[in-house]
């Protein structure tokens, strides 16, 4: 795992990649490209077949009126993109995806960190906590949504029973347009926080004890050690966790599709569901491809911004 590599590991390996003045021994091994290519070929084949080709083919589809149900396809230029830019459903579903990403990523990073710090602080029964925090992550999405459908059930669900016991009125968890997306974000946090928790815990366990000893000798209390020793050393893990999380949240589809099908009133429909609706139940593969490429552009922008921010920090 990259996060557990000691700081400076990159610096050690970097000079080996020096281009012009390469030591002869290494250079000679690399001039014979034949055997190397053979080893890489299986991967390249799979890569080309399942990644490069779909990307290229999808781009082509987005420029046609391709239909799932007909074989005749005509080139329509940028018509699909023009339609997508003027389609309010594209923008509202893109907005929903962004809202979900923000609403789920922040707690998924912060809560995972909090849980890892708690467990690492030396609570009794370590394995119980680790198991309890990680277990939901092992559930398939269908099971998770089944459980939460009943928790969120308006009449007999646990969530509303709980509110009732507190003397509060019932909430339409999945039926209220203002609440549904947050309810789904909460479910997602419960379901997937375990993975981030594990990454943080592994990082915490690999922090050198010597820095804590030094800090303690200097008279730093627990809070000071947390702020000045632990958190700064976790920065690389946080970058990794945040990046993985944002990308994972952007591609939200399954739990929403099963729970609300994008309802109520389109308020939880992520852009990927819109692509699915248009392409697979509406048969308009060309238009669906165009919308998915717009989404792809958004993902690239987000990735570039992330890269920029983290580069600056480093």
């Amino acid at each position, binding site marked *: 795992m990259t996060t557990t590599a000691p700081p400076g590991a990159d610096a050690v390996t970097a000079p080996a990649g020096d281009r012009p003045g390469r030591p002869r021994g290494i250079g000679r091994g690399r001039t014979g490209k034949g055997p190397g290519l053979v080893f890489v070929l299986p991967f390249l084949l799979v890569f080309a077949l399942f990644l490069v080709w779909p990307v290229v083919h999808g781009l082509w589809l987005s420029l046609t009126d391709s239909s*799932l149900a007909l074989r005749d396809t005509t080139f329509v230029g940028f018509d699909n993109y023009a339609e997508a830019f003027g389609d309010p459903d594209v923008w509202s579903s893109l907005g929903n995806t962004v809202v979900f990403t923000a609403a789920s990523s922040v707690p998924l990073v912060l809560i995972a960190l909090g849980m890892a710090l708690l467990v690492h602080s030396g609570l009794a029964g370590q394995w119980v906590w680790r198991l309890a925090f990680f277990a939901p992550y092992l559930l398939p999405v269908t099971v998770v949504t089944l459980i939460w459908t009943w928790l969120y059930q308006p009449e*007999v669900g646990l969530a509303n029973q709980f509110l009732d016991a507190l003397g509060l009125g019932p909430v339409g968890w999945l*039926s209220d347009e203002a609440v549904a997306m947050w309810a789904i974000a909460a479910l997602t946090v419960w379901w997937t926080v375990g993975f981030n928790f594990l990454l943080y815990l592994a990082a915490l366990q690999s922090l050198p004890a010597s820095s804590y000893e030094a800090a303690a000798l200097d008279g730093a209390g627990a809070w000071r050690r947390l702020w000045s020793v632990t958190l700064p050393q976790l920065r690389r893990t946080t970058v990794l966790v945040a990046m993985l999380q944002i990308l994972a949240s952007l591609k939200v589809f399954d739990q929403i599709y099963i729970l609300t099908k994008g*309802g109520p009133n389109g308020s939880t429909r992520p852009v990927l569901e819109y692509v699915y609706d248009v392409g697979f139940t*509406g048969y308009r593969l060309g238009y669906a491809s165009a919308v998915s490429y717009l989404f792809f552009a958004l993902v690239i922008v987000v990735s570039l911004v992330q890269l920029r921010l983290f580069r600056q920090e480093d």
Partner: protein
Amino acid sequence: MITRFPAPPPEAAPGAAPGLTRRRLLRNGTAAAGALLAAAPLSGCASSAAADNSALSVWDLFQGGDGMLMDDMIKAVSRGPRGFDVERTILDWGPSYYTKLAMSAAGGRASDVAIMHLSRLAGYAPGGLLDPFDLDLLAEFGVTRRDFLPGVWARTQHAGTVYAVPLDVHPFIVFYDEDIADKAGLLDSEGELAEMGSPEALLDAGRKLAEATGQKGILFGHVTDTAQNWRQFAALYAQTGASFTLPDGGPPQIDVDAAIRVVTFMQRLFDGRTNPNNLDYYGSIAGFTGGRGGMAMLGGWELRTLKQSKIRLGAARFPQVFEKPAVYADSHSFVLPHQKNPDPARRREAHRYIAAIVKQSLTWAAAGHIPAYQPVIAERRYAALDPQSSYADAAEVAVLDPPNWFAGAGSNFQNRMCQPLQSALLGNTSAEKAVRQMVREADTLLRQPNPVA
């Protein structure tokens, strides 16, 4: 899931069973090997690539209780010397079923026979995804248009050609607890649910049922459901006599005043006090079987589920409250998905199979569906089915989705219509705004280029 009828013999010693030819053995063996090799996602393709004199491949979407009944029916026609050799593929019901069916037909290598909701025909027949039926051939096997209700038969056609043979009509109806309805004074002299006749009568019935249960009156699950609200709305809207048509290119022909009248009534009916307005589908079933309401508005296909409860179950066709009798329904129908080079002998076998299964539909009625084949309805054994026979007349006033490529069972159209209706029932929007949104949504769908024509 793929099932073979008749089931392949257990032991495969060559020449062991007298009826076991080498070809048959090879075929069964290959099928078994294929089933082992093909992972679940591939199995759909495996069946469609069947060789010419192999089993008749049939696709359907019947799971659970329906699936077992279909098994029984296929078993019944697989017996005897002229029994069918059938390979049945059960696919998951939902929008994805229609995606798979369209794709297989577009590729020209579809199954020999498939089940389709009649409401989806408009998305398939015009684009050449279905092959027409040979009515003479059907007549040879004893099935003609006179065996079906005219209203249902009319929907089997596109441009005057018949593309579907209905197996059933499955209406959206009301189930009720006979004891509670009796206590509430809603039964007629024959012990059946009395006619309503006006919006006020149904509202009043809800109040009386709520009194009788001490809890709620009429249960209706619609929250997060992508069809229920549309079923309810479409039934009531058709009762006003107004028409709802979706001409290609738009705008939709919808009587806004009638629609607002219907949605306003739905809001009054499900006021959240007498009749809850915030139930989801399974919540309404659980509530009804648990005695928390005296009546439930559901599809007839829930009959088997509801029968497992302890309540004395009654059923009636969806109550008429406006000017015209009308019930929202759909129909599971047999179609011949498009094949590039259909083998005439196989086509003939497909016609014979469909005719034979349709005649078995008394078995099918156990699931709560109304057999479309009228000679079965006329049988005394059907009249004896309780409570199915109580709502058999629903088929006569059945109203299906307006025909258009994007409408029908499991479609995005139904989902989109349900969204504003759900908001209206939950009190988040007014009836008028909900109707305006429905018109807008329909218009948006109509403005899309038609991908199947």
